[in-house]
């Protein structure tokens, strides 16, 4: 069971920050390669985001995110209250142009260009 008080705090943070990264270390000084990769992806997009260092409370936070979003490893990037993914998913979405779309910003020219239609998107509903 996750700590109820911590869980509530985490839920409030996720609700209050449209783009929120739970990571090991800080954006200025990531303490894990996977966290660094997400920071770099977000920097490429040039979006404002909140960042939380999970290292001071790693195990309690694992238990909290396991309950909130069925995910226990960090980094975790939340966008508009939903878990978008960790390093693998964020990098994949950066490469396909979907990350900027999910974050509601324009993909900068310097970032990799979208490679055709995203293979993963659900089929469009035509009525």
């Amino acid at each position: 069971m996750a700590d109820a008080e911590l869980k509530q705090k985490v839920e409030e943070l996720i609700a209050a920050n449209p783009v929120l990264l739970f990571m090991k270390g800080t954006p200025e000084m990531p303490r894990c390669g996977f966290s660094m990769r997400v920071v770099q992806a977000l920097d490429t997009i040039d979006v404002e985001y909140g960042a939380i260092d999970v290292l001071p409370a790693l195990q309690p936070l694992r238990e909290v995110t396991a309950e909130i979003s069925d995910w226990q490893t960090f980094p975790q990037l939340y966008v508009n209250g939903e878990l978008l993914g960790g390093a693998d998913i964020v990098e994949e979405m950066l490469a396909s142009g979907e990350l900027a779309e999910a974050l509601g910003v324009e993909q900068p020219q310097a970032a990799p260009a979208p490679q055709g239609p995203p293979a993963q998107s659900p089929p469009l509903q035509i009525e």
Partner: protein
Amino acid sequence: MAADLTEIERMIAAALPGARVSVTDETGTGDHLRAIVAAPQFEGLTRIAQHRLVKSAVSERFDDGTIHALSVKTELPG
């Protein structure tokens, strides 16, 4: 203890019938694996939901410490 890559592939394939699964050892230490999975069950799911399906299929090997990290790439079967 190093993971048995074939067993990991079997576990994922058993959870996702019809999936194409390829698991490789990323570091040569047998505990940091990479799985490429193409499964019909991924249709219409977000990436995070697709990854959850793959990770939950092998959660037993995370829990017993055989695997420390599993990097996942999901695809729709082409």
